């Protein structure tokens, strides 16, 4: 279990400030967007990184793991989309501009592949779209090409659409217009014919990531997944965020050995709801 590369200990704890916070889309929706100014963490963040966030004192006891959509070094701000579903995200939703947001980060292992001349497909759904944008920006900055395949319940939740579109072609499938049987990876499947893809990264949907992986297998490119997990600490201390390895070969920790893994290493199924149907 000794890591092949050193565990990331280059994180800091920073008292950031909430700059903007509100619900995205319909007013009674369950997706929030918060902008936090935390220049130290923002300056150090790389694609693949995540942060632990706590905007409250007292309860709930633990901070929450979040993968920002963007880090803006000039303003020192990060933009986070979060699904409001438990006491932690409800507490974030109650936060007002000017209040303190304690941020620990950047955490995890960044994506450090060489992207020059590489053509990368990004497949994301819902809040799982967000960690793909820093990666997309990085790939383009390094001389690669990106195509984004984005899926969501409604158009309101295709986060960062225009910013992906500024970097390369974007395909979108939304449940309320296209039906939830239409997989955005069908578009990727079509485009794989006649367009060389060198790698695919998936996040936010087991179904889509499995479909992307299958395309990778048939067309001979590697696939990667950004995993989410319940976490105690986010920094490698608690061992509470195992990713199940394929072939029953034990676990890796999402926080310090991930959050990005080659799909051939980890099981692509929800730990709560069990293996894929």
């Amino acid at each position, binding site marked *: *279990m*000794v890591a092949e590369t*050193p*565990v990331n*200990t*280059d*994180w*800091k*704890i920073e008292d950031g400030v909430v700059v903007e916070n509100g619900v995205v889309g319909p007013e009674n929706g369950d997706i929030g967007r918060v902008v936090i100014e935390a220049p130290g963490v923002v300056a150090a963040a790389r694609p693949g990184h995540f942060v632990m966030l*706590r905007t409250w004192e007292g*309860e*709930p*006891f*633990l*901070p929450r793991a979040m993968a920002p959509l963007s880090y803006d070094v000039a303003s020192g701000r990060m933009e986070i989309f979060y699904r409001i579903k438990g*006491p*932690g995200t409800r507490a974030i939703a109650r936060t007002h501009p000017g209040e303190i947001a304690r941020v*620990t980060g950047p955490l995890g292992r960044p994506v450090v592949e060489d992207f020059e001349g590489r053509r990368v497909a990004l497949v994301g759904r819902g809040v799982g779209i967000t960690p793909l944008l820093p990666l997309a920006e990085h790939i383009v900055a390094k001389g690669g090409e990106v195509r984004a395949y984005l899926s969501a319940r409604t158009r309101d939740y295709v986060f960062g659409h225009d910013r992906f579109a500024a970097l390369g072609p974007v395909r979108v499938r939304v449940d309320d217009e296209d039906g939830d049987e239409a997989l955005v990876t069908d578009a990727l499947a079509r485009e794989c014919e006649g367009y060389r893809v060198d790698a695919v990264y998936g996040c936010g949907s087991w179904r889509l990531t499995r479909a992307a992986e299958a395309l990778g297998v048939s067309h001979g490119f590697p696939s990667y997944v950004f995993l989410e*997990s*319940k*976490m*105690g*600490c986010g*920094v*490698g*201390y*608690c*061992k*509470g*965020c*195992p*990713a*199940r390895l394929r072939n029953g070969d*034990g*676990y890796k920790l999402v926080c310090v050995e991930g959050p990005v893994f080659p799909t051939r290493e980890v099981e692509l199924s929800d*730990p*709560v*709801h069990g293996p894929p149907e």
Partner: protein
Amino acid sequence: MKAELATDVGPLRLKNPVMPASGTYDWFGRDPEQVSADSFGAVVTKSVTLRPQAGNPPIRVAETPSGMLNAIGIPSVGIEEFLEEVLPQYHALDPPVIVSVQAYSPRECESMLARLSEQPRVDAVELNLSCPNLAHGTITAQSARLSAEMVAAARGATRLPIVAKLSPNVTDIAEIARAVEEVGADALCLINTVKGMAVDVETRQALLGNRSGGLSGPAIKPIALSMVWECYQEVDIPIVGVGGIATAEDALQFLLAGARAVQVGTATFREPRSLARIIAGIEEHLAQDGLHSVGELVGWCHKGRLTVGS
């Protein structure tokens, strides 16, 4: 005058009374800028087992009111890889190193302690007699006889100080404490997590992969305090108090109840700088009260009320 933070836990001399609880801090060869293991009273490793084991399936953690449940299940590289790859990294650290040991039988305990005794940088061992998350069934520390057998085996195999970590999931903690004291434990560590469970309404199943887990955090502090208090009266060996300590005031409460040192666990997950803050807070409190050393506070509860002029 600066108050003396140093404390003794049996034969172990600590520069201050605050250390991480096993499995809640890890030395990766270096620390982040804002955390320094060199400031700790001691460093305690994650429990090591004789043979490698993977730990429990997800979900391993669940938040609760004022704390959390964990069912980590002690992922371990096994004692041999631990000695070769993990322990040498601890040579860089200044505080005493306490290796936490999880043995499934007295024989395993004996062989692990024999190996650890040969190591120059092991200053003490903590016997984890009380992990509630293992598939093997019994918690050793639920039986005075099993606990005594394990500690006796350890005692026969090493001259290192032995700290026995006990379980709160018992009817009479003092009975277990006396049993391990009798066979040569140098200190007690009180308490491990309290057995608990979470249920997921959506799946209608136990939330944790191992079904039940161990409750930690501020929620269990009163339980831990009462067990420290009780054992202080029942045994002569020193006590390391642990359970829900998140602030210097919490730590002081444990010292007053009879602990000579404390461990901080779950609070580190919320705030990785917790240990440093607690150490500083204790020092500040001693100075404010005009005390010369931590030792003056230990067990004060048992001496009766502090009255003006006393």
